Structures are given as structure tokens and as C-alpha cells.
């Protein structure tokens, strides 16, 4: 079974077509990178796959569940890290993880295990006892990433997971994602940082102005366009 199937997906905001009949498929366990400049339609696509926007037309299946009619089932097995996400300001980091775990855990014991996993991912230690409002951007991002991975989702949808982070924090976040992928989580991520995606992804799709222009493994794409990196591929494809 495919982890994600997207067919002729289109999204209009009024007169503006943000996503224009895109198709792509993601294999189970794969890290799939959607790359393109700002305003290309990445966030819109990820929001649709994550069930929070309804497509104007087209079909999406997540592990065989149909988007629209089976959203409840999809929400059980995915987790979404929004591009610009925050946590409840007057909860502690721990309180936030506990609250979010409450939606997935079967019982108290199960919840404890989920939160424990998150604590391990964040590596924030005692700072988790502090209010989220006192966290730095990097800490918040790690908290949120931990929140999305702690439940071992079958599909993790990560919108610009390293967006706005410094080198060290980005490095750590990328390693966490890699680690989880090895444990079997399928990852759909977006980035406008093409070098980062090249390092992280098994497969990439180049998106611009709502259309997917090219798709393949980083190695194949570089070979096809005789480029040294994906940035050069993108420039070639667009021109």
C-alpha cells in the first residue's frame, strides 16, 4: 500500500489557484521532500493532506483512507507540524505534551509512555517544567517536533521543520527526523532550503506556482540535469 497518493489535487483561494492539479505518491517509510520557493503551494498541499483544508478538486488517500470521507481515520495515524506553530503560552512544556498525548493514549499508562518518548526527543530536560512562553524558538520547535513524533505516527507531515532555526538546531532536528524515519514513520516534508532537503529526502518533488515540475530521487535528478545540487536542478527546471 502507498502511504500517500495525491491525484489531480487543486486548491483555489477565490480567484487564486494555489495548487494546480498536482500528482505524487509516497512509499511507506520514505522521506518525501516538497521543495519550491515561497508561495509555491507547499503549505497548502500539506494542510490538505493533514485534513485541515478541503481541496477544490482531486483525490488524496492516506494509507488507503480517503480524504474527506475518512478524515477521522486519517487523523488517528498522522501528525502535522505546521510551518508557524506555537504551544499554549501558559502551559509548561510538559503540560503541553501531556495535553496533546491525551488525544492519542488509550489509558494513563499509555499516556505516560508517549510523554516519556517526547521528553527523550526534546532533550530539554528540566526546562520542560517551565512555561512555554519562556522558550527560545529552537526549544519551541523541538517541543513541537517531539509532539508530532511522540505518537509514532504512520505519516508525519512536517512543514518547513527547520524553518527559522540556527545551524545547530537545524542539524539536531534533521537527525531526529532521520531517526524516526528509520523506525518506520513515513515523512512528508516541505522546505525552501533545497540543500537541506537533498540531504534528508529519499525522494523530492519540485513545486512552483502550484505545479509539480519534476520528481525523483536527488541522485537521479542531479544526473538528469547534470547539476551539482538540487538548487542547480531547480534553476534548470524553472528556466
Amino acid at each position, binding site marked *: 500500500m502507498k502511504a500517500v497518493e495525491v491525484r489531480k489535487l487543486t486548491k483555489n*483561494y*477565490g480567484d487564486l489557484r494555489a495548487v494546480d492539479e498536482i500528482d505524487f505518491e509516497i512509499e511507506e517509510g520514505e522521506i518525501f521532500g516538497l521543495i519550491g520557493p515561497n508561495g509555491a503551494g507547499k503549505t497548502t498541499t500539506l*494542510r490538505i493532506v*493533514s*485534513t*485541515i*483544508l*478541503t481541496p477544490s478538486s482531486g483525490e488524496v488517500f492516506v494509507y488507503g483512507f480517503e480524504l474527506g470521507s475518512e478524515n*477521522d481515520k486519517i*487523523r*488517528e495515524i*498522522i*501528525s*502535522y*507540524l*505546521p510551518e*508557524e*506553530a*506555537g*504551544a*499554549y*503560552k*501558559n*502551559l509548561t512544556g510538559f503540560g503541553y505534551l501531556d*495535553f*496533546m498525548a*491525551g*488525544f*492519542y493514549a488509550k489509558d494513563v499508562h499509555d499516556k505516560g509512555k508517549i510523554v516519556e518518548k517526547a521528553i527523550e526527543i526534546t532533550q530539554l530536560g528540566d526546562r520542560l517544567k517551565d512555561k512555554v512562553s519562556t522558550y527560545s524558538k529552537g526549544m519551541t520547535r523541538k517541543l*513541537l517536533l517531539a*509532539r508530532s513524533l511522540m505518537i509514532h505516527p504512520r505519516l508525519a507531515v512536517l512543514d518547513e521543520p527547520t524553518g527559522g532555526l540556527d545551524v545547530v538546531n537545524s542539524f539536531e532536528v534533521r537527525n531526529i527526523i532521520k531517526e524516526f524515519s528509520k523506525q518506520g514513520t513515513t515523512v512528508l516534508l516541505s522546505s525552501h532550503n533545497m540543500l537541506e532537503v537533498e540531504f534528508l529526502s529519499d525522494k523530492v518533488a519540485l513545486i512552483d506556482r502550484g505545479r509539480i515540475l519534476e520528481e525523483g530521487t536527488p541522485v537521479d535528478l542531479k544526473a538528469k540535469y547534470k547539476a551539482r545540487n538540487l538548487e542547480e536542478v531547480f534553476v534548470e527546471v524553472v528556466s
Partner: protein
Amino acid sequence: MNKFFNLLKKDTKELITVQLLIPIIIVIAMYSTIGNIMGSEMERATRPQQIAVVDFNGSALSNQVIDMLEKSNFIAVETGTFNVEDSINFARKKGINILVAIPENFEEDVVNLKQPEVEIYSIMKGLSVRETGTSTQVEAVFNVISNAISTNLITQKFTGIPPDVIKQPIKARDIVVVKDRMAQASPALVAQSAMNFSIFIPIILMLVTITSSQMIASLIALEKQNKTLETLLTVPVNRNFILLSKMVSAAIVAIIVTAAYLFAMTRFLGISQGPQASSDVMRALGLTLTTGDFLLLGISIFFAILSVLAVSTILAVYSEDEKSAQLMLTPIMVFVMIPYFLTIFTDVNTLSMPLRVLVYAIPFSHTFLATNNLMFGNVQFVIYGIIYQIIFSFVCILIATRIFSSDRLLTGRLRLARRRV
């Protein structure tokens, strides 16, 4: 249901913040201070008041007048000089505000019906509430003196007739009529006894509706402001639970806040102390609420809260942060204040037709008007109001749940912002 309580716990926690508690604490502290000051002023006012007296006449009548003052809760202090200026200085030194000067030919003029002038000096030190209290004392002093002399004159001229009969040759008997019932009582007393209902219930309603509205708007706007909404919407929980949890916790916190204000008002300002003896009168007039009436009132309040929550939700969805959400609520504030002031200051039935339609179209109006209508037996009217409120809240909740399961929850603000540019 577990997931629902998980949400409810979080939402309630989010509302109970320092920003919420500080104004409540300040208001309660303010009420308690005002209450203390008013209490001690009241106590001072009922204590016997010292007044300075300079008696230029020294007759039997002037002595009788001073006696009368003493009997009427004043302590008359003779200044010991026969000079007004010195007497004023004397009073000032003793901290006395009022000086009464009885003129030289006082008794003679009274006997000859020449209306002698008694000078009453009010020695003012400022313009505080305490000073304004002096004016009522001056009036009291004058009344005591005048009364004493007129009693004296009447006894002299009409021997054998009780002076009170001459002063008040008729007596009034007040009878209040309500519908087919009547009872012996003054209309002022009846109005005062109805205070609990006519003042308190509107205040409770106003506080509860406005606070509920602010609370739910905060909850929704904070999800946007803190950028937590997107995540919450991908969580495996029924969207209606997300909305319901916000409504319930907003209502709970609003009720707690209202209770706190109400406690402060009754405890410290003593507003609720209506005359107790009049409850028989109220019962005789049928101006009491039966258990059934209270039930209807409760239902009406419930649906007023429900409709304010639903409307506020719809408005808050279109705001980007907490501040703009509070701005969005302005129309709700207006629509709550209109029936609030109307019920306090006028009778809706005296308004012109279009205004009356407007008032009845506001769902909260029916709750504000319910107490009066129930007391005066217009039960049918209250029931129609409740039916309207049920339909109104049902429609609004339907719209709110639709919004909660649509893109608009997420894109509402963006679209507005886009249209502006």
C-alpha cells in the same frame, strides 16, 4: 468523553490567568474600601451630632428650643461668647460644622407671629461627601426648631387640641393595585422591594453575557494568536467537541467571575438590603416568583448565554488575535447594553414600534424582560421569548459548528486581511 475533558481542562486553564484575576481582585478591593468608607460615614451620621449654639435671647422659649435639639439627636454646645465671629472660631476649634445663632428678640417675635430669623452657619472645610452631609443636618436643625415652636404656638392658641392634628389634619392611606390584586403599602416600598429583581438580575445577566462573550472570543483568538489552532485541528477529536469545550469553559469561568463580582457587591456595598418586612405585601400583590417562574427565568438565562457564546464564536473566528477579537465583540456589548438600560430606565411598551421590534429581535432582551413579565403574570410572553431564543441559539450554533468544520476557521482572517490590500 475523555478527550473532551482533556480539552475542557486545557481551555479552562487558559482562561484563568493573571490578566483575568487582577481586575477582579481590584474591583473587589475597591468595593470593600468604598463599603468601609460608606459604613463609617453612615455610622457617623447616626451618632449624635455636636452643634454650637449662641443664644442672644436667653428666654424660656430659646431654652426650650435648645432642649428640643438635645432630644433630637444633637448635642448643643453653648459657645460661651455673645459674638458671632468668636462663636464661629469656637466651633472651628471644637471641630463643629454647624453654628445656630438665636436672635435677641426671638421669643417676642415668635409670640407676635413676626417669623424671627434664626441664623444657621455651616462651616465648610472642603467639598467632600462629608461636607455635603452638613446640608441635611442644617435642614434637620431648622426642622427641629421650627417644629418645636409651632407645637408651642399651637398649644398656646388652641388649648385642648393635639398640635399634630393641626399640623397634619389629614392622613393618607396608600394602596397599591396590581392587576386584580391590591394591598396596603406605599408604591415606593413596593418599588424598593422589587429592587432585588429589577437591579440584581439585570446586573447578573449583563455580567454573565459580556464575560461569556469575552471568554470564548479569547479562547478562539488565542488558538490563532499562539498558532496552536492548526495543530489542534489535525488531532483525532471531533471538531464539535473542540467548540463545545470552549463554550463550556467560557460559561463556567463567566459564571465564576459574575459570582465573584456579585459577592463583592452584596458583601461590601450592601445593595441587596431591601426592606424585609414588605415580603407579605409583595405576596399579597402576587409580585413574587414561583418555582415555575424561576425555572423559566433559568431557561431564559441559559439560552441567552448559549446565544451570546455562539454569536461571539462566529465573530471571533474572523479575528487574528485576542485584541482584535475583543474589538469584534463591540456589537455584542451594544446589544447587551441596550436591553440592560431599557429594563432599568424605561418600559419597552412605551417605545415606538420599530424600536420595540429592534429590542425584541435582540435575543438577550427576552431574558432581561423576563423577570418583570413573570412578576406581572405575562408568562406567555416569556415562553414566546424563550422559543425565539432557542431558535436563535440553535441557528447560531449550527453556523458555528459549520465554521468549525470548514476551512474558514483557518482562512477567515487571511481573507479579510487580503481584501484590505
